[in-house]
C-alpha cells in the first residue's frame, strides 16, 4: 500500500499528491509515468511523475478531477493509502542539449511538462516557457516553471492573467520576435498539441509531444493506448508517451480519448450520488 503524505489543491479542481513509493522514486526519470488504482474497485489510470524524492522515497503526482477515478483520488486524505501504484513506466524523455527549447504547457499538462523542461534545463538548454489555460485559476506550477525558465510567459483564454490568447499565440509571438528555436516541447490537451504541432510544422521547428491516451496495463500488453504515429500503430505506454509531434495523428487520438465518454458520465453520476460534495460540485457549486 502506498501512503499519502499530502493531497492538496493547487488550482481549481487540480490537486498535488505526494505519496510513498520508494522503488519508483529511485528509478524514475523525466518523462516516466505510473499507473495507479485508487481503490479495490478502481480502474488503472496513468499519471506522469511530476517530481520525486529518492531519499524520502516519495513521488509527486498532479491531477485534475474530471472523472470517477480522479474524484476518488481527490477525496483521499493525508495518511490514506492508494490501492496500487506501478512504475516507472514509459520511455524516459530523450534529453540532450538542443540549444533553445520552447516549453509549452496547457492547463494540467503543465504538470508533465515540468520534469521534462527541468531535465532539459539541467542538460544546458535555454528554456523559454509558455503556460496557457482557460483562466488564471487554472495556471499551475508557475513558480516552479519560472525557476527553471530563462523566460516565462503566461497566456489565458479570457485574459484574466498574463496575455489574452492561446499558447499558439504565444509561440507565434516568439517566432515573430525572431527567437531561434531548436526544439519545441508541447504538453496539454490533444487539441492544443495538434495546433502547436501544426504551427511548428509551418515554421520547420522540431517538436516533441507527450500523449495521454486511455491505458489499461501500461506495460505493452493490451494495446488500449495505441496511437497512429507516422502512419504506424504505436503503443504510447512502451513506445512513448513522447513522440515526434509532426508524425502524430491527433484526430485519431481525440476520437480515442472520447471512446468511453458515455460510461465515464454514468460512472461519475453514480459516484457523485454517494458523495454530496462531488454532487454539489458537478451541479456547478464550488468545492
Amino acid at each position, binding site marked *: 500500500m502506498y501512503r499519502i503524505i499530502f493531497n492538496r489543491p493547487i488550482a481549481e479542481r487540480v490537486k498535488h499528491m505526494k505519496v510513498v513509493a520508494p*522503488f*519508483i522514486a529511485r*528509478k524514475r526519470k523525466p518523462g516516466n509515468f505510473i499507473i495507479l*488504482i485508487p481503490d479495490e*474497485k*478502481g*480502474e*488503472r489510470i496513468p499519471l506522469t511523475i511530476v517530481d520525486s524524492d529518492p531519499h524520502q522515497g516519495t513521488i509527486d503526482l498532479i491531477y485534475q478531477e474530471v472523472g*470517477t*477515478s480522479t474524484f476518488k483520488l481527490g477525496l483521499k486524505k493525508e495518511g490514506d493509502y492508494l*490501492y*496500487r*501504484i*506501478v*512504475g*516507472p*513506466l514509459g520511455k524516459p524523455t530523450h534529453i540532450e542539449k538542443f540549444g533553445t527549447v520552447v516549453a509549452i504547457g496547457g492547463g494540467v499538462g503543465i504538470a508533465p511538462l515540468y520534469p521534462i523542461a527541468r531535465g532539459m534545463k539541467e542538460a544546458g538548454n535555454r528554456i523559454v516557457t509558455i503556460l496557457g489555460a482557460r483562466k488564471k485559476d487554472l495556471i499551475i506550477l508557475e513558480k516552479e516553471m519560472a525557476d527553471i525558465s530563462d523566460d516565462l510567459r503566461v497566456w489565458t483564454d479570457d485574459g484574466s492573467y498574463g496575455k489574452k490568447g492561446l499558447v499558439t499565440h504565444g509561440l507565434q509571438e516568439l517566432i515573430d520576435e525572431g527567437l531561434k528555436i531548436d526544439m519545441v516541447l508541447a504538453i496539454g490537451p490533444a487539441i492544443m498539441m495538434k495546433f502547436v504541432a501544426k504551427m511548428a510544422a509551418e515554421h520547420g521547428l522540431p517538436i516533441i509531444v507527450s500523449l495521454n491516451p486511455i491505458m*489499461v*496495463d501500461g*506495460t*505493452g*500488453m*493490451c*494495446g*488500449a493506448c*495505441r*496511437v*497512429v504515429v507516422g502512419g504506424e*500503430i504505436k503503443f504510447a505506454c*512502451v513506445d512513448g508517451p513522447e513522440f515526434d509531434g509532426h508524425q502524430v*495523428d491527433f484526430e*485519431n487520438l481525440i*476520437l*480515442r480519448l*472520447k*471512446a*468511453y465518454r458515455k*460510461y*465515464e458520465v*454514468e*460512472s461519475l453520476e*453514480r459516484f457523485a450520488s454517494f458523495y454530496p460534495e462531488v454532487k454539489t460540485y458537478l451541479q456547478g457549486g464550488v468545492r
Partner: protein
Amino acid sequence: MTKQPARFPEELKKKLRERFNEDWRKELRRKISVKERLAIDRVPMPENEPMERIRGFFEVNKGYTPEMAMEEARRCLDCANPTCVLGCPVSIDIPTFVKLIEKGDFIGAVKIIKETNSLPAVCGRVCPQEDQCEGNCAYVKMGKKPVAIGNLERFVADYERAAGEVEIPQIKVQKGKKVGVIGAGPAGLTAAGELAKMGYDVTIFEALHEPGGVLIYGIPEFRLPKAILKEELEYLKKMGVKIITDFVVGKTATIEDLKKEGYEAFFIGSGAGAPWFLGLPGEELNGVYSANEYLTRVNLMRAFEFPEYDTPIPRGKRVAVIGAGNTAMDAVRTAKRLGAEHAMIVYRRSRAEMPARIEEIKHAEEEGIEFIFLTNPKRFVGDENGWVKQMECVKMQLGEPDASGRRRPIPIPGSEFLMDVDIVIIAIGTKPNPLIPQTTPGLELAKWGEIKVDWETMETSIPGVFAGGDIVRGGATVILAMGDGRKAAYQIDKYLSEKKD
C-alpha cells in the same frame, strides 16, 4: 520451438515400470477384463445448460462425481507402454493416478499428479488434452474416445481442495539462497513452487496487481474460476513463496539491481503479453480491441460488473472476433455473456483448422456462437465518432499446405463484402513482451523478440538467468510453460549447487 522427445527418459521408464508391477495394480488389472473395460462408454462431463450459462460467468463444467470418476477410470486399460505419459509435457504418471482413482484413493491420485504438476486444478481445465495425453491414448488408435484424463485430473484436484486435505510439502533443507522469478503466470508459478520445495528463498515479481498471468487476465471465469487460482496461489505462499505485485522487472528494478539485493539466479517467465494487430486500415478505430485488452478489462478489471467496478466495457450487439484459437473462443463467449445478439468467430481457414480445444468449440457452438469460416477482414469502417461500424471482408479458399502443415488460405478475388459490427476483437496471437529484453543488456533474442535459451537447460545467454514459457516460445500453452518452469527449476538448483560462493 522444440518438440518433446517421443521416448521415455530412463528414469521415468523405471518409475513407471516399478509402479506398473506393484501388487495392487496387478490386482486391479485382473479384477476387470479388457473386454469389459472397452465396453464402458466415456463418462460425459456434466455441464450447466447453455441458455443458463450465457447469462453469467459461472463455470460451464460441473465436474465428475466420485462415482463418475471411478467409472471413467475403469476404462483405462493400464497399458504396459503408457503412451499417454509421452504426450504430457510434464510427464505426469497418468496410469498410476488413474488407477488410484479406480481404487477410490483420490488423495493418493492427486499426490501422484503433484509429483510433476503443481497446478492440477488449472491443467485439468485448460490443457489441450486432445493434442497431448488423450491424443496418445490407446483408445484413440482403436477409433474410440480416449480416457478422459483431463476430467479425472480436474476431479482429484477439486476433491482434494473440497476435502481441505491439501498437503503442504515438507521443505527439508533451507538453502539460504535467493532466487528471483519474473512473472506470476504458469511458467513462473511452477518454477517458484519447485524451487521452494527444494528449499530456495523464492520471490516472484509480477507487473500486474494480481498474480496469475494469463490465468487471471486472459482465461475467463467460466473456464477457470478465479477461486481455484487463488487456492493454488495460497498453496505456493504456504510453501514460502513470496509474491510482489506491481513490480515491473526492467522498470521498477532491473535484473542487475536485483542481483545487488542478493538474488543469485533468475527465472524469466514474462510471457507473450504483446498483442499482434492485423495492420489493416481502420484498426485504430474505437471498438476495435486486442483480445488481451478485451479480456483484461472483463477478467482482471471486472468490467462485467461496471459501474460497481470502475473499468467499462462496451456491450456490443454485433461482435466479430478475428481468429479461432482458445483466446478467440474466450473472447467471443465473453461477448455473448455481455449480451451480444451476434457473437461471431471470423476465421480465414475452415472448421478443421481451428486451433482451439475441442471442448471450447463445442461449448461455443452450444452457446449460439456463429462461425464464419474462410473469411478474412480487409479493413474496418468507422462512424462519425470514430467507432467501428462495418468490416470489409474477403472470402477465402484453401490452397496448398503451408509451413504449419495446414492448407494455406487464399483470398477469392472480387468476393469482398461488408459486415455490420460494433465491436471487433483481434485474437490472432501474441508476441513476447519487450520490457525485459529491452532493459537487460546481454540477453540474446530470436526473431520476434523471444529470449534465446539452451533447450537442455533453459539457460539464457546470461549465466544464472533462465527463461521459459511464452517469452521463449512466443505463444504456446499453459502446460508447456509449466513444463519449462519445472525444467528450469531443476537447472537452477544444479547451477546454484555447482556455483562457487
